[in-house]
């Protein structure tokens, strides 16, 4: 198990290397000239060219890539082309709000989602099932942008319970994580319901019931644990997406997170920031995938990974 994890961790390095090449190529291929965008609309041609030289963008692409890699191996992600601030510093300050938002949204979404899923499966085709699925459908179909503004209108403007945005205290995170978690909660509810229903038809459930086990033990210990595998897959995937930062929620709630930074840096072709962020996302995704794989083992001994 430990060795398996280690092997996977080592495997990340070549993967990230490939990602770095792809990311580098792609962002240099999209049209748009950072030197011009950064020098400003009133800049002279001479200034634009000087900016280009200063940023090293006049060099051939492979040279730019080499110097970029060289700096990266020394732990230097460079400075933002646009603001001149160190990228590492910018990412650090932007990562925390996104991480909090992700954790809080995932936390309530998973708990509530699984509960709704179980209740719906157990009370299939009865009113709790309909109610649960109604919530789930609404959660998926309500656009987050709209939900966010409605929550602000009710809880900030009318009731004054929570601030409209920002990152000043835990209160600031309540409305954004509700908004961000709604869709995920619904997805998890639907997945855990269908997965539970499938598991409940399995032979070992019939056996458990035949043994005379109480219903909550059957559901809780046997059915739930086996159906969680699918839920973990979905939750892991969503976790990865959320860590990339949600542009929509970060914009509505004025949260200085990674998503907004990415959009801002793309519109200015801030190559260094885009590269650093995309690499971070790739690394996060790979790590989460690893964790999900290991969780499979925890949930189902049959898929435990041998160390030999």
């Amino acid at each position, binding site marked *: *198990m430990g060795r398996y994890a280690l092997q996977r961790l080592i495997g990340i390095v070549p993967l990230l290397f490939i990602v770095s090449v792809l990311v580098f190529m792609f962002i240099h291929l999209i*049209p*748009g*000239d950072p030197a*011009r*965008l*950064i*020098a*400003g609309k*009133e800049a*002279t*041609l001479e*200034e*634009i060219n000087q*900016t280009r030289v*200063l940023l090293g963008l006049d060099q051939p692409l492979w040279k730019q890539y080499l110097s970029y890699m060289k700096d990266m191996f020394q732990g230097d992600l460079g400075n933002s082309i646009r*603001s*001149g*601030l160190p990228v590492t510093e910018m990412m650090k*300050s*932007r990562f925390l709000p996104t991480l909090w938002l992700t*954790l*809080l949204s995932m*936390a*309530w979404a*998973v*708990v*509530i989602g699984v509960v709704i899923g179980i209740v719906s499966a157990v009370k299939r085709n009865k009113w709790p099932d309909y109610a649960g699925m109604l919530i789930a459908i*609404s959660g998926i179909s309500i656009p987050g942008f709209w*939900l966010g*503004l*409605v*929550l*602000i*209108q*009710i*809880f*900030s*403007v*009318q009731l004054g319970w929570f*601030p*409209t945005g*920002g*990152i000043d205290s835990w209160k600031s995170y*309540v409305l954004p*994580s*509700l908004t961000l978690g*709604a869709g995920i909660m619904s997805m998890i509810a639907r997945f855990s319901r269908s997965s539970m229903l499938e598991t409940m038809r399995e032979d070992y459930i019939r056996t458990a019931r035949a043994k005379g086990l109480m219903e909550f033990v059957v559901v809780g210990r046997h059915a739930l644990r086996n159906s969680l595998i699918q839920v973990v897959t979905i939750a892991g995937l969503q976790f990865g997406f959320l860590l990339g930062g949600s542009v929509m929620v970060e*914009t*509505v*709630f*004025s949260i*200085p997170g990674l998503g*907004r930074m990415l959009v*801002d840096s793309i*519109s200015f*072709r801030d190559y260094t920031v885009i590269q650093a962020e995309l690499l971070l996302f790739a690394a996060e995704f790979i790590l989460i995938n690893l964790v999900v794989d*290991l969780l499979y*083992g*925890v949930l189902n001994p049959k898929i435990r990974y041998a160390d030999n």
Partner: protein
Amino acid sequence: MKFKGKSWSMLSLLIVMAIVASACSSNNNNAAGSENGSSPSSSASAPSESGAAPSKNGNNPVIAVNANFITLDPHNTSDTLSITGARTMYEGLMGFDDNMQVVPVLAESYEISEDGLVYTFKLKQNIKFHDGTDFNSEAVKVNIERILDEKNNLRFRKSFAKVSKIETPDAATVVFTLSEPYNAFLNKLAMGLMISPAALTEFGTDISKHPSGTGPFKFKEWVEGDRLVVEKNPDYWQQGLPKVDSVTFKPVPENGSRIAMLKTGEADFIYPMPTEQVAEVEGDGNIVVDKIDSTIVRYITLNTMKKPYDDLKVRQAINYAIDKDAYLKVVKSGLGAKLDSTMSSKTQFYSQQPAYDYDVEKAKQLLSEAGYPDGFDAEIWGENDSESVKGMQFIKQQLELVGIKLEVKSMEGATLSDQINTPATPADAKIQMWFVSWSPSSNDADGATRGLFSSTMFPPAGSNTAYYKNDNVDKWIEDANKATDPETAKTIFADIQKQIWADAPWAFLGVDQVISGKRNNIEGVTVLPDGSINILKAEVK
């Protein structure tokens, strides 16, 4: 057990989940309720319970803005918001008043030589930078030299490129000698803010994070993307100012959230005020909306070197075919003014021109005379933000009435800029019409003219995307710069505007308004016509 490490972390995760779930569940019910109730947000402008209560933020007003601060290095700013930030802490020899007219700030007085080449400034005395060092002529010299140093590649270098010599005969006198007369020099000085030389030595390129000027506010804290906080400079040289203890700027990109902050009192002042919300808050007694004409002009460039736009009659026809009142109503929610020259009425040396009054018949007739009785197919470019798209759709509908069939091509900003600046010669240019705006950064007539209409400024060298070339205008632009007496410059610029207006290289649309919203207990915060915010006289009542 195999999973010891993992199991404790899973356990802690579960605990976190449980805590959050208990914290969220009550709200969750309410959230579900709101979904069912689906109260439309616009109808919910019930008077807020705070009434005429004092500011939530005490004597520390909060200003919500729509963008992030990029840099606080006052010599390297290019976006209006960063300029706003810099101006709270820094001042220049000259500055702008609320109408963007140039007035002395750190300068006591100035004299310009007959030939327009020598500017002599007397400086105000006994002014100190925030770090305690003296402001004097030597400090001015250090700042201008920093800007001019090519190695620094600062965005303000071109503004001072004509400075050939700076002398400091004594601590209170600075003499600039220019290589050639430059009419806009005072405006440029109003942009050139003064940094403490001691701080520059100490922090070098990091000065952006350690601002030290002579301004009314001192730097307190800048969290990139979240807030900029400046606090009162108790030793400020203007007696009795500032009147607030601190000011916090918060980037709030979403319009709806910005206005919500104003309603809850989390923000005392917001800029920009979303135009579509102005009508909604106008009944709210706690909120005051301020509007003034800006220096931002909106227009469509017509490529005068390309058929059929090379024909003056076609360009005039397009101008007559557009209903400017309808443009303001449809695209700008009724907030704005018609553009009646090549620059805004707030810009230096503006001179009003006779309107191209909306007249479809006249437009059709001009098109027939030009040989296009049935119109033609054309293409308009613009950015992909909602206002530009809406604007282009509007133009398409207008031009359809005179037979011009317009294809709207909206592009992401950087891609569009590439399309416009890649062609090296006018002959290669593919651009036909461009739906765009302009605002001269230091509000001088030269900045509103040269880059847009001089034939030396065809892309990629400048922004003359109409590829407009008129030998008189070229010559006048140079003459105006050399005119040392403002009256002469004004006359020349009047001629320039008249000529360009008659040549119609643009379809002239409108002038934006800058619209801000504030709680009624805030006074003295103003938005200048260029969209920068002035907090010098901010006051909480």
